[in-house]
């Protein structure tokens, strides 16, 4: 951007591509990609847009949002619900998304234990009294390993058309770079964090001294997490109200894992059965040329695979009267089943009572009579 930006043309509108808010979110996303936090809280989550973006980050297992305004959260909170496909194909990771209604000036135990806390365009909305308590709550009480704080850089304001005092009527203040940095350094020092400054929204060429349009401080905790003992005092009472909670289906949950395994086992077993039966039928209907040509490709493909498998297995699938036996060992050797269960014992345990097995429990049995 800003290729031929000449000073005399400042009356022109500065346009950021992508838009500044997207750049801020991307900044957070990049940070998540870099540090792979498991638990992330967005303080001042507003319409949950950032949370929605973060839910796609596969490292995150706990996402929380906090905002002082419940209705603005509620408006779009359903976008944080699991999608139908999340139920159809439960993912490996677990994910819980929670939204809390409350003020950052208050401590609530639900905000403990996070790896990353983001405060994007938040602090400039805080009243003086709230801002005063902010460092103690975020750095002292919540004490995550990383904190990201972004806020407008007032030095940039003259370049933005139409901005008279602040960029938004609800802003209580807008800081210049020195003000923000001094506030941040104080907080970092007080709570044993290091801080680095950066930003998004580059200034036009030749005006680099005004700094980024949005200034960002990334705080990293210097001391290692010592768990519970950090909290010398008793955790405070819960003061936030939970307005939304979604637990995503995950294979870590036995219920979903079992469903997935049972369905995969039955599907695999049926494939093997079909293959066996069509071979069976072909032997009987040798005089049907069309039939043969229709079946051959699939049989080739499948039997090749089966042959590879059964070489070192002692048991093979077989047909006995009206019953087809497919050994669990064969089923277990299919990559998908294998990956889901991990061990053969786990497989047996998960399908117990859900799939019809032979009397010794070593094979899946299908009765072909009804077909």
């Amino acid at each position, binding site marked *: 951007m800003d290729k031929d930006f000449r000073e005399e043309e400042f009356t022109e509108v500065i346009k950021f591509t992508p838009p500044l808010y997207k750049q801020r979110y991307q900044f957070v996303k990049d940070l998540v990609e870099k540090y792979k936090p498991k638990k992330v809280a967005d303080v001042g989550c507003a319409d949950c847009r950032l949370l929605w973006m973060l839910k796609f980050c596969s490292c995150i297992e706990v996402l929380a949002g906090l905002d*002082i305004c419940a209705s603005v959260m509620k408006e779009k909170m359903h976008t944080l619900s699991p999608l139908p*496909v999340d139920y159809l194909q439960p993912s490996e990771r677990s994910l819980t998304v929670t939204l809390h209604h409350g003020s950052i000036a208050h401590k609530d135990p639900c905000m403990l234990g996070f790896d990353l806390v983001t405060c994007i365009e938040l602090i400039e909305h805080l009243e003086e009294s709230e801002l005063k308590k902010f460092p103690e709550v975020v750095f002292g009480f919540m004490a995550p390993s990383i904190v990201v704080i972004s806020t407008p850089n007032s030095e940039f304001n003259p370049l933005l058309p139409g901005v008279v005092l602040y960029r*938004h009527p609800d802003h209580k203040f807008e800081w210049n770079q020195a003000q923000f940095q001094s506030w941040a350094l104080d907080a970092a020092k007080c709570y044993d964090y290091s801080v680095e400054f950066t930003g998004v929204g580059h200034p036009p060429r030749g005006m680099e001294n005004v700094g980024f349009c949005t200034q960002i401080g990334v705080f990293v905790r210097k001391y290692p997490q010592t768990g519970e003992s950090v909290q010398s005092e008793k955790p405070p009472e819960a003061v936030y109200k939970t307005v939304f909670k979604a637990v995503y289906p995950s294979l870590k949950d036995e219920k979903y894992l079992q469903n997935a395994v049972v369905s995969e086992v039955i599907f695999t077993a*049926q494939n093997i059965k079909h293959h066996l039966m069509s071979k069976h039928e072909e032997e009987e209907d040798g005089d*049907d040329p069309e039939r043969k040509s229709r079946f051959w490709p699939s049989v080739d493909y499948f039997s090749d695979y089966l042959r590879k498998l059964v070489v070192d297995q002692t048991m093979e699938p077989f047909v006995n009267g009206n019953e087809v036996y497919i050994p669990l060992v064969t089923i277990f050797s299919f990559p998908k089943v294998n990956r889901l269960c991990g061990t053969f014992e786990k497989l047996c345990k998960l399908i117990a009572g859900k799939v019809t097995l032979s009397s010794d429990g070593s094979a899946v049995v299908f009765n072909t009579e009804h077909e």
Partner: protein
Amino acid sequence: MTGRARARARGRPPRQVTALPAVGPAPVPQALRSQVPDRRQPQQHDVPLPLLEEPGGHGRLRGFESVLPERRPEGLRVSSGLQDLSLRDRGGHRRDYHDLGVNTRQAMVHVQESKTGLSGKMIKLTTNHFRLTSRPQWALYQYHVCYSPEMESRRLRSALLFQHEEHIGKTHAFDGSILFLPKTLGNKVTELFSRTRNGEDVKITVTLTNELPPTSPTCLQFYNIIFRRLLKMLNLQQIGRNYYNPGDPVSIPNHRLMIWPGFTSSILQYEESIMLCADVSHKVLRGETVLDVMHSLHSQVGQERFRDACAKELIGLIVLTRYNNRTYRIDDINWDNNPMGTFRKSDGSEISFLEYYKKQYNIEIGDPKQPVLISQLKRNRGNMQGSVVLIPELCSLTGLTDKMRTDFNMMKDLAIHTRLPPEKRQWEVGRLLNYIQRDDNVQKELENWGLSFDYNSVAFTGRVVQGEKIFQSGNMFDYNPQSADWTKETRGVPLIRAVPMDNWLLIYTRRNYDVANTLLQSLFKVTPSMGIRMSKPNMIEVDDRTEAYLRVLQQRVTTDTNIVFCILSSSRKDKYDAIKKYLCTDCPIPSQCVLARTLSKPQTIMTVATKIALQINCKMGGELWSVEIPLKQVMIVGIDCYHDNISGRQSVAGFVSSLNQTMTRWFSRCVVQSRGQELVDGIKGCLQTALKSWSKWNKSLPSRIFVYRDGVGDGQLNTLVNYEVPQFLDCLKSMGTDYRPGLTVIVVKKRVSARFFAEAGGGLKNPPPGTVVDTVVTRPEWYDFFVVSHTVKNGCVTPTHYNVIYDTSQLKPDHLQRLTYKLCHMYYNWSGVIRVPAPCQYAHKLAFLVGQSIHREPNLMLSDRLYYL
């Protein structure tokens, strides 16, 4: 934290470059803006406005767009207050699925007072409708909101307006220009001042445009939107039009299916009150992605037929995408593109699909060489048309394919979960009402709007009309009303008209020689008692190849052949199609194809042979039974449509009309046309030839014509009323200046969510066949009724809805209902009562055969026989 930019949180897939809708103003129709200032009178809700858009539907009745606006005959004026409602529920769809505002009853004088019948025994019924009540003097206040200076973004408009929440109140619905409130703001015009984040001062003028009474069409649509909000609050997931509960799925691993229980709901103005109609719905979801299906197809059919197989299996299916909560219909597969291909984003930059999904959703596409799917967007943002590119790997399948539907075992397994008996069904619906009643947030929302539900379902009385007597060659039978079937009663009784089989072919493969002989012996056993004279056939053995069959047909079929009987060894469609195509078009001779497997079971062969004998007889122009039809000089017409999703989007309309007084002979034609052509022009032609045939048989023209029109999608009623009916009238006029028969057009609808339950001994049962409902749950603006004509073994019986949209027959409602029920007895492929009048079912059969196998209009030589049965 209002300073945070709010953005559309719902993910969108990339659009195709060809049709990129620019970011523009909120999609408020132009017509609306200019109209608003004129529409200030309160209570004004029945303003006739031209419907400018084709009321969509699911793909039925295509191609009326071009003609619709001009043709609006007097006397069939359609009123609608919906045009002023652009409150969108989701995705910009603004379709009138419920045909609100189509007021057809007002043009029919004889049902102005009453449209109810009288005959029959009273029966106590309950239904799945619940009354919606509002507090006294309830009204919905509609405001128009305008901004000075003009603000384009809908988001910004809302944000600016709701800076004044203390003034407007917490309860509101706003679409960027129209604001609905449960209370009045006091003044007719309210001016508010807001400031944008750029410091710009904006004057917002909120003007009262309407004070809507609870029954106005706008209000009705508004209730539905509010109700959907409630369902969302109950954490139900929206898929398509309905809401489902993902927390409690039923999985059927045998078929890799998952069923989500859920609900369909609609709030409408019924006869006396506004009611919620809630029904249980099941969504079938599949644990496979489109790519999985492609892989398994590849291994099944091989490289050569792979693309065809994919098109056949996949096109027309509805998919769910992995990254957002939307459904798309697969309209095409683009084999020349793949995820490495690029598209242009709304900011103008090029990005590949791979990168896009990685960046936007953190999704890694595993197979960069897969083809892409194309989905056409329906009426996107007003008039924009466009298409969306989807990646197979990221799409999950929903619903059942035709192939799955024909899988008996699968359907059986599904039915266990989806066919709920009456008691259970009503209990499930009750559960939804319970959720609503118990959820505090939901109750609060309802209370804020001043609305509430009567949580007990509506009860009323229906009528069970008398069962019909079945006449067959001088014999008269009653049938058991519980089963609505007379197979046993008529066994061994001569048919009304038995066509002899003097010259016929029996074609089989060598492997099926024994089967052919068994069949022949059985036919010789069963035909004498029916009165069918049967000679020995020409037994012909063929190779099991399509060409071999065709060669035999070409060599052996003559004009004297009565019927060709083929025993097929597999259910391969191409062979069947080739035989049917040849014998329906090039060489018009009735034919019967049977799978060898069907004939292979000794214990059922006699039953099967009996059915086949009856079917063959009908195909050759025979007649089986009749019921008493007191009306004279009447022609009955049945119309149904078939839409081909695969090959070139053909549509076929089957047209079947009666030829004789007893309704035992039918004239059948069909219209085949490709996309964009007018179905109805062809139908007009059919009606003309049908009238000529009728006059040939009866030496005069009918004095009354009843058209049962099936295959009408939700929201297409308007099109029918405004275009199809006038075409029928035109056609009648063309038969002669002094020819003025009565015409009755009845729209038949099988897919309705109304369910009726008979109270029996403290429990609920299905209502018996012959149950007629024409009060309480019918619509005041229509001349409509429900008939339960058939029975079901499992689950709940679905009533059929009949909507008389045009009627100059002067027949009393009672008689029309009786006639309709009688016609449900006349379908010769089933010796029992069916769900729709026989001509509709015949039309369906015909359209299906032509759409699936023949693809062009069959030879007219066959048109006086039921050759398609």
